[in-house]
């Protein structure tokens, strides 16, 4: 139809037009594309952060950020409430930076938030900049994951309706069920507060293994020896009472204080574990521990 030169001219014109139109289309959609990529990358960062959280954080702060008594405070909504409290006191940094710095540099000193709680260990440093294991980009991912809780809004705190045993040693206990006690220990059933018992986070059942607190292997036998010991200062008369006292009033007597005291006269063991338990929970746990001869 056309000679070669004309065909070439037509072909080149079509190709040039196609190129220009393509660039025009890219130009017009570039803003949306960049926004879409940003959202997608943020979603991927949250996914990565979730894996890191599961690997590094969940043991102390709970798989869903609900906290583990004695190991770490709740993050959801704790971290957001803590930030609001700090801001009211004049803290000038952003929430993102507050979380990022807390993870990267750790918490060398106790904060005033949740001051009534006792935690066995301080928050360690996590960033490689401060001697921890994580790269900067991993910390960023983790921050995205934690901030995603706020995007979701703080979960309403369950209002437990139960009578906690607290630190009252005089209250009478119902008969204990060692089977249920073991299930409590293994976190297969929940305490009355609706949270899992956190004993095994710090206490091993293997002889001699020290996680944070001493191993509880053979605790029944040991308890009987402890109450006879000359330096024993507590009020317990039986091994059961000794275990009960250790749970409800851990500061009453601290064996090997150089190993297990957070401060002079203050055990690493949290003093408020009784607030999570009903009398039945406590009795079942004691019954279970008394089987560990």
């Amino acid at each position, binding site marked *: 139809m056309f000679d070669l030169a004309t065909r070439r001219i037509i072909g080149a014109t079509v190709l*040039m037009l196609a190129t220009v139109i393509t660039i025009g289309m890219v130009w017009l959609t570039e803003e949306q594309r960049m926004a879409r990529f940003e959202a997608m990358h943020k979603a991927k960062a949250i996914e990565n952060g*979730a894996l890191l959280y599961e690997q590094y954080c969940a043991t102390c702060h709970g798989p869903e950020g609900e906290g583990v008594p004695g190991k770490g405070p709740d993050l959801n909504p704790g971290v957001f409430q803590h930030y609001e409290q700090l801001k009211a006191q004049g803290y000038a940094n952003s929430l993102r930076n507050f979380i990022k710095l807390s993870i990267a540099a750790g918490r060398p000193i106790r904060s005033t938030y949740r001051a009534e709680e006792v935690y066995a260990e301080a928050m360690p440093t996590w960033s490689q900049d401060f001697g921890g294991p994580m790269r900067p980009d991993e910390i960023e991912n983790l921050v995205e994951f934690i901030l995603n809780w706020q995007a979701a809004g703080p979960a309403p705190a369950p209002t437990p309706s139960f009578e906690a045993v607290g630190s009252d040693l005089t209250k009478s206990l119902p008969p204990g069920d060692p089977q249920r006690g073991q299930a409590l220990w293994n976190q297969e059933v929940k305490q009355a507060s609706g949270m899992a018992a956190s004993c095994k986070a710090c206490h091993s059942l293997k002889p001699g293994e020290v996680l944070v607190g001493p191993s509880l292997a053979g605790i029944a036998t040991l308890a009987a020896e402890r109450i006879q010991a000359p330096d024993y200062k507590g009020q317990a008369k039986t091994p059961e009472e000794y275990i009960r006292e250790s749970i409800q009033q851990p500061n009453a007597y601290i064996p090997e204080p150089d190993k297990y005291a957070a401060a002079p006269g203050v055990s690493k063991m949290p003093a408020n574990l009784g607030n999570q338990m009903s009398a039945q929970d406590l009795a079942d746990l004691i019954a279970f521990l008394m089987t560990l001869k």
Partner: protein
Amino acid sequence: MALRWPEPIPTLQKEIQQYGWRRVIFMHLDELVTRVTAGIPLTEVRNIIRGEPPPRPNPRVKPHTESFILHIKPSFYHEAVTRLYPTFRLGLLSFYLFLIETITGIFLMIFYTPSPLVAYESMLRILNNVPFGQLMRDIHRLGAEAMVVAVMLHMLRTFFTASYKRPRQFTWATGVLLLVFTLFLSFSGYLLPWDQLSYWAVTIGTSMAEATPPPALGRIVNLILRGAPDIGAAGLLRFYLLHVIFLPLLLFFVFFVHYYKVVRHGLSLPPEMEAVGDDTARKVPPEKRVPYIPDIAIQEALWGIALIAFLVIGAAFFFDAPLEQHADPLNTPLHTTAPWYFLWLQGLLKDPFLLALDRLGLPQPPATIYNSKTFMGVILPGLILLFLLIMPYLDFNISRRYRDRRKALVAGLVGVAAWTLLTYMGTPAFAVTSSADVEVLQEFMPLNPDPLYGEGRVRTIPYEQLIPGTYDTRDLQPPADAPKLAHVLEELKHRIEGDPHLPQGYALVRIQEIQPGLKRFEIAIYWTKTKNGQPVLDPEGKPIIEESKRAIYLHRDSGHGGE
């Protein structure tokens, strides 16, 4: 004697008085065009556009002596090389691609910092905060792959048309160097995004350097290349400098040697038209001459337009340069591969020689004499490279015709077949053995995109269909409104039950919503431990059940489940 003009410089006023203003405007326009085109006057430009033949003497050859850019191009081509065969324009395309890579590369350089701390962040910025950033990156990457392909095909073409023979041996040798530089240019750019893909591909690629004999030299080569025993900040900077300065300069220099030799000896004619030893450049009969300007120049411009259209449209609609997770030196992805053009080396490193001995039941040579990595990773590729470089000087066949070169052509085809086979052997599909449970987990949910399985089947499920719950493959009851989830669970069931290494295998799949918009997907595989086909029993006489678990998280916006 004082230097002075032979006559007074004519002023504009005098010119107009002498010639009239119309003629003066034309004269000055003509002078401007002649200067810009380096020697073609305005009337001749008009003739070119109208397609008229040049007058004699031909003013259209002037730019070949006057212009810097054009002085390297021949002023006419033999008519036989102006068609698609025999050149396929592969050399021209390679050069165009090099130019396009340079331009897009400089664009990317503006937004890139070669440090492990921020390199990946630079990539994210290019993708989410730089207008046209993704397009430029995609063109750069697509162009790099295209350049490797073009240069390889260019070499194959030169071999099959026997264009490398006398007097063009040295042109071939420089061409082999250009191929090597192109491969290393592409490979050095591979590391720069600093994601898992690039980090591990380059780790594999450079691990061969360590095997350079003797061991002391290997350590030094490795240190020079990586800047440290492993790739880190120093290695990234070195690869960056190789990529943006050293290799391009080297390639540019060798390219000019190569092209000078091409022009010097003329583009080789099709085999049947030119005997070995002929220097065609100076012997083109006048009636066979096709002038560079305008015919060839227009052709080359058309190829350039077509190439740019291919790259722009390809990058905008069909090709996305991959970007995986941030590089993690502590976490090796399961199926790591070198870039595709080095897969043949990875295939060599799986050592076909030892595999053959093994298959034949012959004893393996002792490691002190035969070190597989040194021999297959360094010595053999070195010999292949050396052979390619000197091959034209060893070729005493005096004919370029296909029918006289049966052995050479067969050898060439065998070489291509061997390359293809080794490339296949380099992929994880060949002789990579990890345990059966890990392979299943990798197939369904790799932690990084897998060369064999891509993102994995789990990530093809749309977010809404990830209905929380526990699903047991022994008794599948997937929800009715999640067909894709049901499909993947069904596939998982068949995959595990059909695997001979997972006797009585089954899987528990647990989906939980962790945060709004974020779900956790866990696969736990259970199977009976066996030894010699018999279940292994524990002290109480019960069969031992093995367990393998992996969990990933899926966010609503992370782009999975897309078709």
